[in-house]
């Protein structure tokens, strides 16, 4: 990584905006970004909240694993199996460092963030929640942090309380305070909203939750990729995220949980690897983290995520976050001056690099489709947050989302594309 490291060094020359990343050299690490959507139309990828592009070194790491030492992990003692196990467990350690976990065994590999959240609901929730117990969700949750709790609530007859979202895209903290009086057992909350860009004040929320004896279950799918995460400093009890949104492959996600909690939880899925002993009618579960990793894990994918975390660390999570702040600030300015555009979420201040908007008189699908003709990839729809869209009386929005490889020129392309939309539908 030596040369890449040098190439990715911060460009500190821009006076006004403090620091931004050297986009040209970062972009050169991402093969997809060189592609043309069609002849002569280069890709402007503004859909990283759905999934990020992958840097060369992640792809190479995964391919090298499959080419050189592909084997199943844990049980084998031949050379390939040992190499594979070392790489897989090494990835776990690097990911533990990345989020400042107390120990590597607190990091469980899953298929995606959604599975990680289901694990918490079905293992911790099923074992610890009883009829009439309350759990607190928010109006801005992604379906992945709503539906698992709804399923559990139906099964166990739990009550779901909702923290409302204010017009400015922030959670209503006074409502949260009221809900805490009912002594909920868990507060399940997203760190960063994938639609509004809201960055929730998690440390404060987790502290309040703890004060009434509730656990805090954090959906970190939109924070782990974009800002420095310290699960211990946040005071979270569980923290879930996906590899594919942070420069890693699809097929792998992570659940971090406090060891004391994980140790007491029953298994989630049953099968190979998650057991210590099996009899015909009974079994003894394995130690953590293996207790929660049933069957052959996503070995190549976890190793790829390890490489992604190395890549992000080398660039610097602080620098990435600042870069995105610098981009979103500009994007909000340009969008808000655009006639007929409404942007949702906090107007300024701290805000994730995502801008969901509508354009008067044009359905978001048509916006996305016409932008695609200019090579600009944005998402249109409910972004797996239907209740949040209902809250704002919307059926859909268009969403531009940014990552370390995006530039202000690309924001300009978005705006140019929107003028085309306007011309067509005006």
């Amino acid at each position, binding site marked *: 990584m030596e040369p890449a490291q040098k190439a990715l060094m911060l460009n500190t020359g821009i006076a006004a905006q403090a620091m931004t990343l050297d986009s040209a050299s970062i972009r050169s690490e991402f093969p997809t970004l060189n592609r043309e959507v069609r002849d002569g139309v280069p890709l402007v990828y503004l859909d990283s909240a759905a999934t990020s592009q992958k840097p060369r070194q992640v792809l190479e790491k995964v391919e090298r694993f499959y080419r050189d030492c592909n084997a199943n992990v844990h049980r084998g003692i031949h050379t390939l199996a040992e190499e594979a196990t070392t790489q897989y467990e090494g990835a776990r350690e690097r990911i533990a460092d990345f989020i400042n976990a107390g120990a590597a065994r607190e990091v469980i590999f899953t298929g995606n963030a959604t599975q990680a959240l289901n694990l918490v609901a079905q293992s911790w929730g099923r074992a610890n929640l009883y009829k009439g117990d309350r759990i607190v969700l928010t109006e801005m949750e992604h379906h992945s942090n709503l539906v698992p709790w709804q399923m559990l609530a139906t099964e166990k007859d739990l009550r779901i309380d909702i923290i409302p979202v204010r017009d400015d895209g922030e959670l209503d903290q006074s409502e949260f305070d009221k809900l805490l009086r009912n002594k909920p057992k868990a507060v399940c909350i997203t760190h960063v909203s994938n639609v509004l860009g809201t960055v929730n004040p998690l440390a404060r929320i987790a502290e309040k939750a703890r004060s009434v004896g509730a656990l805090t279950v954090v959906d970190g799918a939109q924070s782990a990729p974009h800002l420095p995460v310290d699960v211990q400093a946040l005071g979270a009890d569980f923290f879930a995220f996906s590899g594919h949104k942070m420069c890693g492959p699809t097929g792998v996600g992570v659940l971090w949980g406090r060891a004391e909690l994980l140790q007491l939880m029953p298994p989630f899925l049953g099968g190979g690897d998650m057991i210590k002993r099996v009899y015909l009618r009974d079994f003894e579960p394995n130690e953590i983290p293996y207790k929660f990793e049933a069957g052959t894990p996503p070995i190549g994918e976890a190793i790829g995520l390890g490489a992604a975390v190395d890549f992000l660390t080398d660039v610097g999570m602080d620098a990435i976050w600042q870069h995105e702040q610098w981009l979103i600030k500009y994007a909000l300015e340009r969008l808000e001056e655009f006639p007929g555009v409404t942007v949702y979420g906090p107007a300024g201040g701290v805000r994730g690099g995502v801008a969901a908007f509508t354009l008067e008189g044009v*359905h978001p699908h*048509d916006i996305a*489709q016409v932008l695609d*003709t200019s090579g600009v990839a944005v998402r249109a729809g409910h972004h797996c947050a239907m209740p949040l869209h209902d809250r704002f009386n919307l059926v859909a929005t268009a969403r531009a989302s940014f990552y370390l490889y995006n530039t202000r020129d690309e924001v300009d392309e978005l705006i140019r594309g929107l003028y085309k939309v306007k011309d*067509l539908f005006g």
Partner: protein
Amino acid sequence: MHDMYREFILDHYKNPRFHGVLDNADITYEDDNPLCGDVIRVDLRVNGDKRVVDAAFSGQGCAISQASASMLMEEIQGKTLDEIKEYTRADILEMLGIELGPVRLKCAMLALKVLKVGAYGVQEWVED
């Protein structure tokens, strides 16, 4: 300009034909595409021969969903229910004259789906 927004598609979107709600409709059905929030309602009046004497659609959504509803309404005026049964995805794509990716296909097919389910019940609609 992009193929998908040919002039006549935009024209159908901006000036939809047979748009509205029929009083005393014999058949009324509404459905939506929750992925993007397109909604289409179709009202039909049929005579003793099971021939469509009047048809109208209403709803909201993207240009593709609304334009294909408008074109479909135009197309089925005077057709029998048996004839309507024969309409396929290919017919809709031919009316639109464009190719569509998997997501937009759902938008384009919504009107046909509503029409067929309304006229024959859900078993007639197999999303292929």
